[in-house]
């Protein structure tokens, strides 16, 4: 990988040259810049230069990396093919150290400075949400009360709602309120409330029922003989009001919605249907999609 090779090169340089020599300093600078290139926080809005809180965050990350990278290379150097992962890890540590409550607060105030639903506010808010997570300052309220798997589900739901709250109500954040005036108090207080709120919506047994991607193949399905698909098939085939047969592609009464729908319900591929009727796939599929929309109230009626 190109990135790996570049990072490896700089790290090797740092290991080879004595500290504080010009070559060493060049290598350190280059390494820090490379790592920062992939940072998520401290980015300017596209088309803008790096200023304000975004510049401050980047500067602090830079300073931290300058200090800590030489130590890290000396004490815990990366394995040969794990340079990228090692670099990401260093950046991760930098976030944890640099993203203080004060920086988070400044991001929040930056968001407040722009009108709701403006691009500038959205940029500040996305940086804020990322920064909160990367700072490690998001609490885990009530964690000890619940079983770990159940808590994970509860927590995710609560965090989702907290993110929405922060974005929609950022204007209600008052930096002068509260005892020690910490921004994260405002966030964690809301998160605590959301956990309690979500607790009412989540049952312990719900956790076991969530499938992973691979488990989806084996989903327990209802054993009813008359599935929705079967009912739809019957309804379209019977065509009691003569609608589905009469809706057809221009000049092709044989290429009716009924014919296409039944074929699709019977798992025939688009290519096969297109070939059979000698009509192009996009023509068939857009006609079909529009008919589905048009007949939606009818299906509601029949089923």
């Amino acid at each position, binding site marked *: 990988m190109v990135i790996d090779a570049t990072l490896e090169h700089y790290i090797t340089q740092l290991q080879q040259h004595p500290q504080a020599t010009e070559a060493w300093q060049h290598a350190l600078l280059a390494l820090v810049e490379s790592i920062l290139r992939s940072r998520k926080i401290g980015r300017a809005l596209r088309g803008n230069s790096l200023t304000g809180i975004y510049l401050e965050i980047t500067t602090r990350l830079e300073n931290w990396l300058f200090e800590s990278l030489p130590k890290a290379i000396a004490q815990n150097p990366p394995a040969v093919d794990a340079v990228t992962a090692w670099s990401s890890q260093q950046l991760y540590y930098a976030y944890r150290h640099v993203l203080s409550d004060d920086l988070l607060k400044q991001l929040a105030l930056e968001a407040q400075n722009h009108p709701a639903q403006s691009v500038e506010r959205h940029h500040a808010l996305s940086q804020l949400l990322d920064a909160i997570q990367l700072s490690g300052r998001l609490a885990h309220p009530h964690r000890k009360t619940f079983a770990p798997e159940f808590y994970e589900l509860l927590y*995710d739901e609560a965090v989702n709602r907290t*993110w929405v709250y922060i974005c*929609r109500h950022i204007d209600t954040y008052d930096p002068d309120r509260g005892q020690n005036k910490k921004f994260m108090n405002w966030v964690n207080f809301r998160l605590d409330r959301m956990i309690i709120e979500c607790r009412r919506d989540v049952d312990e047994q719900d956790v076991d029922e969530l499938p992973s991607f691979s488990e989806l193949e084996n989903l327990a399905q209802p054993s009813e003989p008359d599935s929705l698909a079967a009912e739809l098939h019957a309804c379209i085939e019977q065509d009691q009001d003569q609608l589905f047969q009469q809706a057809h592609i221009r000049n092709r009464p044989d290429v009716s919605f009924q014919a296409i729908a039944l074929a699709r319900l019977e798992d025939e591929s688009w290519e096969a249907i297109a070939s059979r009727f000698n009509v192009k796939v996009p023509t068939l599929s857009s006609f079909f999609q529009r008919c589905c929309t048009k007949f939606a109230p009818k299906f509601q009626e029949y089923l």
Partner: protein
Amino acid sequence: MNLSNATSSSSIRLALTAHRWAQQFSRQQANPVKAKQVYLNTLSVCAVQMYLDRLGIDVDLTHNQSWNSAQQTLMDVADLVISGWGVLECRPVPPGAEALIIPPEVWSDRQGYVAVQLDESLRRAELLGWVTTAHAGTVPLTALTSLDELTIQLLQSRSEQTASQVKMQPERIHLGRWLNTVVDAGWHAAEGLLQPLELQTEFGFRGDRPDADSIDPQEIAVARCKTLVLSTSHGSVAVNLMVGLLPQSSNETEIWVQISPTDPEQQLPVHLRLMILDEQGDDVMNAQARATEAMQLRFTGQTGELFSVKVVLDQESVVEHFII
């Protein structure tokens, strides 16, 4: 752990709400392939909806084809209707996949297609990017446009909507200013011309109905008059609209609205109606002329309240908007 995926602001946590919807819909499909398709499509739509939620964009999921069981059965669909912008298709990208697959049934009538990458646990979704056309069904992930562009478009369209809603507000006369001797264009002072008449309200009225006899016309602090013209098929009809104010307290005002013919010898047209509308445009008070000399409605309102006066004859109407 892929650190970048776990923490990006376009990364969504799929928790109970999303999975509940997915389960509810997929259980209606007996075919396991279809059941899986519906499950993943639903999770993807939920992921995008949650992203929009943070942008302050509300969507009504019931408008989606993807939220309708019959439509889900007939098509591989994962649409999200965003009012004022268009339809966004939210396509699931399985873990490890390198391309976004778009099925033929959704190649048309879509403003864009978002790639929603799902991880193996189905607990995290990442919005990788989007495209505006279906590209015949396959888009390599490396060819996706940045999600930022979609976000900017959506935010701008939302701002435009809000702005145009504000523009659609009608011009209103500020009655409060009349107390400061302001006379708006088209109106002239009419103090002393407004006399209490027998009330002729047919339907319900708001607030206390002042008794005609108990009002001293001197209490009408200010009155203004404006001529309204209605052009009907029988020709133009002009009437005088008079509005008078009797402040009751610091934030309550009694308002008199009167319609009378411009020619004192004449009577009002028989079918002329006078209506008071509330902020929503609903009719809260009305009266019909029955060969009378004038019609008068009285009601009480709070400072800041909005109302309109509507005069109707045949199919024609004239409306004046006020704020107390």
